[in-house]
C-alpha cells in the first residue's frame, strides 16, 4: 500500500505522473458518464421501488392486523359486557325469585293484619246507650189525675231508680270505652308490622331499581359495542393497557411470593430427591423439584378458580355441567390443601436441616452450643410453617391477574405491532423518497470531478450550434 510509486508512470517525475494519471482518470470518468448515470438511476430506482413496495405492504398488513385486532377486541368487549349483563340479570332474577317466593306469605300476613285491624275497628265502634225506660214511666205517672200523694211518691221512687240506673249506665259506658281503648292499644303492633312490611317492600323495590339502572348502563355500553365505533375501540384499548399494567404489577408481587416460597422448600427438597443431582451445570434437581411444586400449586389454584367460574381461561371447564365442575373444584381444593400441607412440613424440615447443619458447624469448630431455652427461638420455625401453608393459597389467586394479562396482552401486542409496522412503513416510504432524490444528487456528485471536460463539451456543442445556425439560415 505504501508503495504508491508503482502507480506512477515516471517515478522520477511525480507531479507529471500524477497529472497524467489524473487526466486519464478524468477521461475515463467522462467516457463512462452515461453508463454510470444509468447505473446510479437504476440502483436508486430499485431501492425506491423496493422501499415503496415494502412500505405499501406494511401499511396494508398493519391495516389488516388492526381490523383483526379491532374485531377481537370488540368481540371480547361484547363478551365481557354480555357477561356483566347476564350476571346483573341473574342478580335481579334472584331478588325477584326470592321476593316472589316470599310474596304469598307476605300477602297472607298483610291480609291477616288488615282483617285484624278491621275487626278491631268494628269493635271500637261506639254503641249508643239504650233509650231511657224511665221516660215512659214518667209519662204514665203524669197521666194519673187523682190519687193524692200517690204520684209524688211514685215520682220520688222513680227519681231514686233513675239515679240508680243512671249511675249503672254511666259505669257501663265508661267500662265500654276502656275496652275500646284497650283494643286500640292492641292494634298498635299490627300497624307497626304493616308499616315494617311496607318498608321492606320499598327497600327491595329500591334495590331492584338500582339493578335496573345498572342493567341500563351495561346495555347502553353493549349497544355502543354493537355499534362498533372508534370511541368504544379506543376506550377498550386504553382499558387493556391499564389492565395489563395492573395485572403485571400484581404478577410481580405474586412472583415475589413465589420466590419466597421457592426459598422455603428448595433446601428440604434435596432431602427427597438428593442434593447432588444436577439437570444442567448449575441447575440442581432439588431446585427444579421445588419449582415444580410451586407451579403445581399455581396450576391447582388456576383450576380451582376456573371451576369456581372466577376466571375463564379454559372454555372446557367453563362449559362443564355443574356436577362435574363441582367435583373438579373439590379435587383442586383437596390437592391444594395437600400441597400446602407438604410445603408446611417442608418448611419445618428446612428449619431442622438448618439447625442440624449449624450444630455440625459448631461441632467441627469445637464451639460451645448456644444457650436457647426461650420460646422465641421457635417463632421463626412457626412462622416458616405458617408461611408454607398460607403461600400456596395466596399463590392460587395469581390466576386472576394471569387471565387479565393473557387477555390484555393480546390487545397490547396487537397495538404495538400495528404501530411498529406503521413506523417501519413510514421509514421505508421516507427512504424511497430519499433514494429518488439521491439519484440526482449522486449524478451531480459524479459530474463534479469531470466538470472541465463537460464544460469543454458544452462549449464545443455551443460552437457547433453557432456554426450550424448561419448555414441553416443560408
Amino acid at each position, binding site marked *: 500500500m505504501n508503495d504508491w510509486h508503482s502507480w506512477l508512470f515516471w517515478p522520477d517525475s511525480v507531479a507529471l505522473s500524477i497529472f497524467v494519471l489524473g487526466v486519464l482518470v478524468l477521461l475515463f470518468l467522462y467516457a463512462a458518464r452515461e453508463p454510470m448515470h444509468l447505473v446510479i438511476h437504476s440502483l436508486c430506482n430499485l431501492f425506491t421501488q423496493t422501499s415503496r413496495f415494502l412500505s405499501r405492504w406494511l401499511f396494508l398488513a398493519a391495516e389488516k392486523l388492526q381490523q383483526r385486532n379491532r374485531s377481537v377486541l370488540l368481540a371480547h368487549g361484547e363478551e365481557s359486557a354480555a357477561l356483566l349483563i347476564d350476571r346483573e340479570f341473574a342478580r335481579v332474577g334472584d331478588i325477584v325469585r326470592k321476593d316472589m317466593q316470599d310474596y304469598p306469605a307476605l300477602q297472607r300476613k298483610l291480609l291477616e293484619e288488615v282483617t285484624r285491624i278491621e275487626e278491631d275497628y268494628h269493635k271500637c265502634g261506639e254503641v249508643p246507650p239504650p233509650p231511657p225506660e224511665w221516660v215512659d214511666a214518667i209519662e204514665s205517672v203524669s197521666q194519673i189525675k187523682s190519687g193524692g200523694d200517690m204520684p209524688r211518691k211514685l215520682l220520688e221512687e222513680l227519681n231514686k231508680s233513675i239515679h240508680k240506673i243512671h249511675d249503672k249506665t254511666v259505669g257501663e259506658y265508661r267500662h265500654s270505652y276502656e275496652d275500646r281503648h284497650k283494643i286500640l292499644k292492641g292494634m298498635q303492633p299490627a300497624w307497626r308490622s304493616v308499616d315494617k312490611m311496607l318498608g321492606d317492600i320499598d327497600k327491595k323495590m329500591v334495590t331492584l331499581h338500582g339493578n335496573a339502572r345498572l342493567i341500563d348502563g351495561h346495555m347502553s355500553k353493549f349497544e355502543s359495542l354493537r355499534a362498533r365505533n372508534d370511541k368504544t375501540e379506543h376506550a377498550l384499548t386504553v382499558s387493556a393497557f391499564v389492565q395489563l399494567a395492573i395485572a403485571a404489577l400484581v404478577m410481580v408481587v405474586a412472583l415475589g411470593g413465589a420466590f419466597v416460597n421457592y426459598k422455603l422448600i428448595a433446601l428440604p427438597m434435596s432431602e427427597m430427591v*438428593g*442434593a*447432588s443431582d*444436577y439437570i444442567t451445570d448449575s441447575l440442581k434437581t432439588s431446585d427444579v423439584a421445588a419449582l415444580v411444586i410451586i407451579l403445581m400449586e399455581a396450576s391447582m389454584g388456576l383450576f380451582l378458580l376456573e371451576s369456581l367460574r372466577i376466571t375463564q381461561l379454559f372454555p372446557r371447564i367453563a362449559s362443564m355441567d355443574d356436577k362435574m365442575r363441582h367435583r373438579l373444584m373439590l379435587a383442586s381444593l383437596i390437592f391444594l390443601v395437600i400441597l400446602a400441607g407438604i410445603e408446611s412440613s417442608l418448611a419445618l424440615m428446612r428449619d431442622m436441616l438448618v439447625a442440624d*447443619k449449624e450444630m455440625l458447624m459448631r461441632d*467441627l469448630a469445637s464451639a460451645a452450643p448456644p444457650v436457647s431455652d426461650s420460646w422465641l427461638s421457635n417463632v421463626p420455625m412457626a412462622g416458616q410453617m405458617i408461611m408454607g401453608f398460607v403461600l400456596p393459597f395466596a399463590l392460587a389467586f395469581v390466576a386472576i391477574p394471569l387471565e387479565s394479562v393473557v387477555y390484555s396482552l393480546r390487545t397490547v401486542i396487537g397495538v404495538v405491532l400495528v404501530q411498529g409496522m406503521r413506523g417501519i412503513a413510514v421509514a421505508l416510504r421516507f427512504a424511497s423518497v430519499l433514494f429518488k432524490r439521491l439519484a440526482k444528487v449522486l449524478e451531480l456528485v459524479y459530474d463534479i470531478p469531470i466538470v472541465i471536460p463537460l464544460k469543454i463539451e458544452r462549449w464545443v456543442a455551443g460552437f457547433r450550434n453557432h456554426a450550424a445556425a448561419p448555414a441553416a439560415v443560408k
Partner: protein
Amino acid sequence: MLLGAALMMSSCSDSRVHSQAVYMLVDTSGTYAQEMNKASKIINYLLATLNPGDSMAVAKVETRSFTEKDIISRVTFDTRPTQATAQKRAFKAKIEAFSNSVKGSAYTDITGGLIQGAEYLNETRAGTKTIVIFSDMQEELGEGTQRDFPIHLDGIRIVALNVTKLGSDNADPRQYLARLKHWEARVRNAGASEWVMVNDLENNMQSILNIR
C-alpha cells in the same frame, strides 16, 4: 417431549460429574506428627465445605504409603443432607481417635500416597478430584522402596499444605525452593490439572477446594 425427558433423565443420572472428591495425605513422620492439630482443623474445614454426594478420604503418609491400610477414614456422603451430616460427625470422630493415637513413622513415602490417592479418586468418578498433602514435602524412602518411575495424576488437583521449612532449609533456602519446584514439576508431568500451595492456613483455606 419424550426426547427432552430422555435427555433430562440422562443428565440427571450423571450426577457424579458435579461432585468433588478429596484425598488428604497427612504426614506422620518425625516431628511433623506434632502438627496433627492443624491437620484436624483442615479436615474439619473440608467436612464443613463438602456437599452431599461428595467423597473424602484421609490417609497417613508412612514408610510405605501405597496401601489401603494407611487410609484412616473414607466416605462418600449420602445425597440426603441429614444422612451426610451424620456421616460427617462419624468421620470427625474417627479422625479425633486417630489424632489421639498417632505415632511417628521412620520414613515419608509421599509418592506412594499420591498413587494410592489417585487410585481412590479415580474410583469415585467425581467431577473434581483433589489430593491434599499435609507435609513438609521432604520425601524419605526406606530401603527397597522403589518410587523413581513416572506416576499418573491425570486431571487431579494437587494442594500442598503447611509446607514447613526444615532446619537445613533455613541454612540454604535454595533447598526449600528446589524441593517445591521438584514436586510441582513432578505432579505437572504426571498430568495434574493444578498445583496449589497453601501455607497461610488462617486466611487462605478456601484455596484448597474448587468451591462451586
